[in-house]
């Protein structure tokens, strides 16, 4: 690179945005990282431990923190990218607050949002006290305390897979990929913290797609006595003892099953982030029927938008785990650099 370094704006300071920023900075580019929250980091900031090895999330958080400690990176927080448009030979973005920033390219890394569990009203989230989401269970792990709303210790916890995923009723036909293995990880963590608490996973399919995921599933059965029941929970209610009662078909027995639970954990899926949708709408970026950003090719163009100088990284294109998000962000940088070199 000769003369003034070229400038890339990254919309979104989660795992993908941070990795893309760090990689570009290492290569000598000037980066502006725009993050809507108080600090970069994304969803991982709320997480306690990560699958498949249950390492502390803090290890990856500190990697990400160091990744953007670079003189080439300028971080703007509490700000969103509202619109991307062409400007001269490059791009210009409108930021919330009315300012404008010019650059040679943009990487969109606006990420995902967790499914709002209230939309599956039959599970009673926001209605019954002891119905929580997987993210809220992770906060309980952070506090090292798993208790019911009344402060008592649970003796049976059920984890409900596919809440907001693979479900036409909430307009999400897609699989969120990471919830199955998250459930297995959380089931093991509950069993380790509360050895006398029974844990049940209610699943449609166990999608253990990544390296060491299937091994984690086996470990859950072999060493932690986690129970797995194949069937989608149809509804939950509360009985006179103030325990949750769920209805499910035990599809392997071919019979309906009823069970009481102390806590029901909803494994909420991943949806395209609202801020990303607004940006796509304003900038003419195409989205697929799953509402995530549509790339030019599923196999060899999955960082490419149909707009010149605009590239995609991470879960704004599809549900992804952290490993794949980091790889996808690095690939987005490769595509961006190829484009900038050709300018």
């Amino acid at each position, binding site marked *: 690179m000769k003369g003034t370094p070229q400038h890339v704006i990254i919309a979104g300071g989660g795992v993908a945005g941070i990795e893309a920023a760090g990689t570009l900075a290492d290569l000598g580019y000037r980066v502006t990282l725009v993050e809507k929250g108080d600090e970069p980091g994304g969803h991982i900031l709320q997480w306690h431990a990560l699958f498949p090895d249950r390492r502390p999330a803090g290890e990856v958080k500190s990697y990400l923190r160091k990744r953007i400690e670079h003189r080439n990176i300028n971080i703007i927080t509490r700000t969103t990218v509202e619109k991307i448009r062409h400007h001269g030979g490059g791009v210009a973005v409108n930021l919330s607050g009315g300012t404008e920033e010019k650059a040679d390219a943009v990487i969109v890394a606006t990420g995902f949002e967790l499914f709002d569990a209230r939309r599956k009203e039959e599970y009673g989230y926001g209605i019954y006290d002891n119905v929580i989401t997987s993210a809220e269970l992770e906060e309980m792990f952070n506090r090292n305390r798993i208790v019911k709303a009344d402060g008592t210790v649970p003796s049976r916890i059920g984890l409900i897979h596919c809440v907001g995923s693979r479900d036409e009723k909430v307009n999400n036909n897609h699989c969120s990929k990471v919830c199955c293995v998250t459930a297995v990880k959380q089931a093991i963590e509950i069993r380790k913290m509360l050895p006398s608490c029974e844990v049940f996973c209610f699943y449609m399919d166990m999608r253990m797609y990544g390296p060491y995921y299937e091994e984690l599933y*086996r470990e859950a059965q*072999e060493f932690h006595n986690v129970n797995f029941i194949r069937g989608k929970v149809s509804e939950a209610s509360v009985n006179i003892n103030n325990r949750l009662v769920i209805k499910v078909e*035990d599809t*392997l*027995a071919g*019979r*309906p*099953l*009823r069970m*009481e639970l102390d806590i029901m954990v909803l494994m909420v899926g991943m949806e395209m982030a609202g801020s990303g949708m607004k940006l796509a709408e304003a900038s003419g970026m195409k989205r697929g029927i799953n509402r995530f950003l549509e790339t030019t090719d599923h196999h060899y163009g999955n960082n490419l938008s149909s707009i010149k100088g605009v590239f995609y990284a991470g879960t704004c294109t599809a549900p992804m785990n952290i490993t794949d998000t980091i790889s996808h962000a690095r690939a987005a940088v490769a595509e961006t650099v190829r484009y900038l070199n050709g300018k």
Partner: protein
Amino acid sequence: MSIDQANKFGFTINRSRLIDYDASDRKVRDYITAREPSFRLCFACGGCTAACTAGHHTTFNLRRMNTYIRRGEIDPLREEVTRCMLCGKCLLVCPRGVNTRNVVAVAAEAIRKLDRNEL
């Protein structure tokens, strides 16, 4: 009107097919798991049932039997354990290495003990 009278008109009372997890107990499961820990590894693929000679001629289904054990459904289990001929073909196909033949043998033992109030 008694049930007998009702039956004259073709009405019958069906037993509930519901698995009421809190009304059944897992003594048999715990007995089997303690003596054959590999039982926990079953992920219900059905390989055993596909290979099963007895299952080709009777309703015996080892995959379903494992589910009954786990749920504490003893009545259907009682019939199931008598159908296995202990040939061990299921052992050869199990992808999780469950000692399936021993599960059936220990399950039969557990049922005998249960019936003698020894469990």
